[in-house]
């Protein structure tokens, strides 16, 4: 079992946890695996050393409030001492969608409405919704024995080492882009997706890794997806999407720039050394726990749509420039004299700014 698969499995089994808690848990185990690998232990042995999976989950849940002690879809069987699956045979899908899947479905409905509006306003290609199975679903095998098979490894393609590039550019036309972290850069995609990548160095020695993804049928579907995992690094990350969702979780880079024409951007627990910017023409930006140093900046802009932003630390560390031309602004922090510049602007829509001062 590779570290990336293990962390994704952990996220899946703990998907009902609050986002901050989920990131804390996954960050702890990701770091623990990295430490062992730095100590010369092979990746799969390092993952195995984390402990028996079901016991690990029980220990994690036991540290949380009681509402999280039992995993959704499971009954606690005190006589057995293990969790018994409430419904279905091993290998069947969970009986209820996780909060993240329900949220994703809601965002796709909004996106479909936005695209329909664009079609009526200008001559564009019409997208039709179709369900296409993913090539890399994580199949989980459950039984009632304490030892549970880990999910089968997905079919990943390694990418060039980001430590050897200055900039990574990811371009997709339509669909979902999921960005996460891994010790080895890799990419995977759904059945109806094709991608290509290449590395170029200019005359000044500046190296760019470009990853282009397109969808074979040119038909929008919630299953058109590209998953890119990147290690922490000192690169610039540029993401360009025509229509769809961009999810970025746990990345560390020197700079991150995201632009989405029609769609959503969800950013969770990112750390940048210089700056982060996200711009959506029509859609939605949700940003939580974006870490920048005292010389850094954050810029989020949405032409038509909403921005929800929750930043870490003390508001006194920031200088705010917030604006909403037409809509509601819930941003109790304006101006300021902190070292981190935060620029949030919405043309038509709502803006919400808060702080997690944990």
């Amino acid at each position, binding site marked *: 079992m590779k570290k990336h698969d293990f962390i994704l499995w952990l996220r899946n089994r703990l998907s009902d946890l609050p986002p901050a808690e989920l990131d804390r848990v996954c960050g702890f185990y990701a*770091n623990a695996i990295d430490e062992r690998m730095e100590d010369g232990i092979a990746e799969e042995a390092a993952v195995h050393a984390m*402990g*028996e999976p079901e016991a690990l989950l029980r220990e*994690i849940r*036991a540290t949380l409030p009681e509402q999280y002690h039992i995993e959704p879809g499971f009954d606690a069987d005190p006589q057995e001492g293990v969790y018994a699956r409430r419904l279905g045979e091993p290998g069947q899908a969970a009986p209820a969608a996780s909060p993240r899947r329900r949220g994703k479905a809601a965002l796709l409905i909004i996106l479909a409405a936005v695209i329909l509006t664009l079609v009526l306003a200008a001559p564009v290609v019409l997208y039709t919704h179709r369900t296409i199975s993913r090539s890399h679903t994580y199949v989980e095998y459950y039984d009632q024995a304490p030892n549970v098979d880990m999910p089968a490894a997905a079919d990943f393609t390694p990418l060039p080492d980001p430590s050897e590039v200055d900039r990574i550019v990811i371009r997709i036309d339509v669909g979902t882009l999921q960005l996460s972290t891994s010790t080895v850069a890799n990419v995977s995609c759904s059945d109806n997706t094709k991608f290509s990548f290449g590395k170029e160095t200019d005359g000044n020695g500046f190296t760019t890794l470009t990853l282009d993804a397109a969808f074979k049928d040119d038909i929008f579907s919630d299953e058109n997806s590209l998953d890119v995992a990147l290690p922490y690094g000192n690169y610039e990350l540029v993401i360009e999407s025509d229509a769809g969702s961009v999810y970025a979780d746990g990345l560390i880079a020197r700079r991150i720039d995201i632009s989405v024409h029609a769609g959503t951007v969800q950013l969770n627990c990112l750390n940048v050394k210089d700056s982060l910017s996200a711009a959506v023409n029509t859609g939605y930006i949700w940003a939580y726990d974006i870490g920048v140093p005292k010389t850094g900046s954050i810029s989020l802009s949405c032409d038509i749509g909403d921005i929800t932003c929750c930043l870490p630390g003390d508001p006194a560390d920031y200088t705010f420039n917030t604006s909403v031309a037409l809509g509601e602004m819930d941003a109790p922090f304006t101006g300021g004299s902190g070292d981190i510049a935060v620029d949030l602007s919405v043309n038509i829509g709502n803006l919400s700014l808060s702080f997690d001062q944990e």
Partner: protein
Amino acid sequence: MDAQLKRGILEVCVLKALEKQDSYGYQIIKDLSPFVLLSESTLYPILRRIEAAGCVTVYSVEHNGRLRKYYHLTPAGQARILDFLNDWNEVVKAYDFIRGTDDEKA
């Protein structure tokens, strides 16, 4: 060993591992390995509990392109170690009593 007793002992062991210097998860496991066997699945809840109890504080340091979390022993954590050592005398007395009773039966 009784689970509660073991849990309490392990918590104090982790606090003791932080007494001389701040440390991080894997290093704590290595430092304690000659004395107690710990895995991350056991250590994580211990660290969460002692942090929630104010016995340690946490900070991050960049290491090889990632953030390594370090744990720092607080005065409350130091007091917890001392309380354990003081309480242990009571445990030893009880142990001697129980063992003494078993010897009589034998």
